[in-house]
């Protein structure tokens, strides 16, 4: 009873807090100064048509590095926690998966992978980018595991892809210090013609590595939580 009262008081307190915070919020009619600067000079300074990509990769590139690191850390802890107890072999009978799903997954999985790669290569032009592309690649992996639940996904391959792309991401950032203005600056390569695929300097290359890294990390989480995987 005391606990319920406490929860009720806490919720009322939150309502009061948010009411005070947003009581006179009537919606924006113009951009603030920072966003105005990004909108006005983003295409000259960075050269990416998708301004969200410009903010994620260049203006706030260090934050992205930190967030990818957090994701790596959580994937590593998940695999550490689940590694010790997978020795019990499971004798439960599994039904064979249907032939239709098997055949369809053989057609669909390459298409899904190609779509994921398309999404992160075109991240500077259209909606999309490394994070979405990585999630799409991990969904393709889920389809493989649904069609063949006993299939072993090579943990070694996942960790190699993850390490190489993470290392390349940091090295490209350091190259920005050496050859351009600062960490993760994209002007190492020329900015190119605005709106074409070979533009925006280093952004497509960085986003390819971010996509591979995110895809590998999400795949590692999924294969660790999936039931019949043995650790290599």
């Amino acid at each position, binding site marked *: 009873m005391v606990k319920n009262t406490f929860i009720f008081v806490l919720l009322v307190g939150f309502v009061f807090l948010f009411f005070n915070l947003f009581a006179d919020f009537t919606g924006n009619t113009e951009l603030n100064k920072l966003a105005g600067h990004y909108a006005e000079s983003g295409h000259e300074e960075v050269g990416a048509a998708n301004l969200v990509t410009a903010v994620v990769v260049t203006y706030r590139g260090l934050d992205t590095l930190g967030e990818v690191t957090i994701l790596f850390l959580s994937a590593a802890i998940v695999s550490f926690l689940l590694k010790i107890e997978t020795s019990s072999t499971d004798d439960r*009978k*599994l039904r*064979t998966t*249907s032939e239709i*799903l098997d055949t369809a997954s053989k057609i*669909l999985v390459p298409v899904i992978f190609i779509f994921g790669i398309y999404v992160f290569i075109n991240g500077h032009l259209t909606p999309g980018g490394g994070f979405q592309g990585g999630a799409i690649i991990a969904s393709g992996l889920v389809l493989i595991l649904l069609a063949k639940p*006993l*299939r072993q996904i090579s943990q070694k391959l996942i960790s190699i892809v993850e390490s190489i792309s993470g290392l390349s991401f940091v090295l490209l950032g350091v190259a920005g210090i050496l050859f351009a203005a600062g960490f993760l600056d994209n002007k190492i390569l020329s900015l190119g013609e605005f709106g074409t695929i070979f533009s925006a300097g280093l952004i497509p290359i960085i986003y390819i590595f971010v996509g591979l890294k995110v895809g590998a990390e999400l795949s590692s989480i999924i294969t660790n939580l999936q039931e019949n995987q043995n650790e290599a």
Partner: protein
Amino acid sequence: MDSTIGIIGAILTLSGSIFIFLGALGLVRMPDLFNRIQAGTKASTLGTFLSLIGLLIITPQWWGKLILLMIFILITNPVSSHILARAAHFIGVPLADKTVTDKYKEEEKTFSIKDEIKNDTHD
């Protein structure tokens, strides 16, 4: 000339949305899960196809992406509904009272579909 093409495309898109509405109506009206899955899948596949063809007529410069979308829907929609119906049959979702025949169960009896672990770890 331009407006006729627009009108044809609009009619196709509208008929597609009518089919999607019929599918949604079928989800409410049908007696058991398997009939509902059939109504939802068949009607919505045809409806989406008609809508996409209407879009293709109105804006021909998007043909590549639209045809890819059609192929994708053509593969994924029936497969996913097949998997849903199969799983529902295995966990024993009851059929409607008016059901005459259950082919899957008969086949299971005569051929005794393999219920064992398939060793397909390396392929």
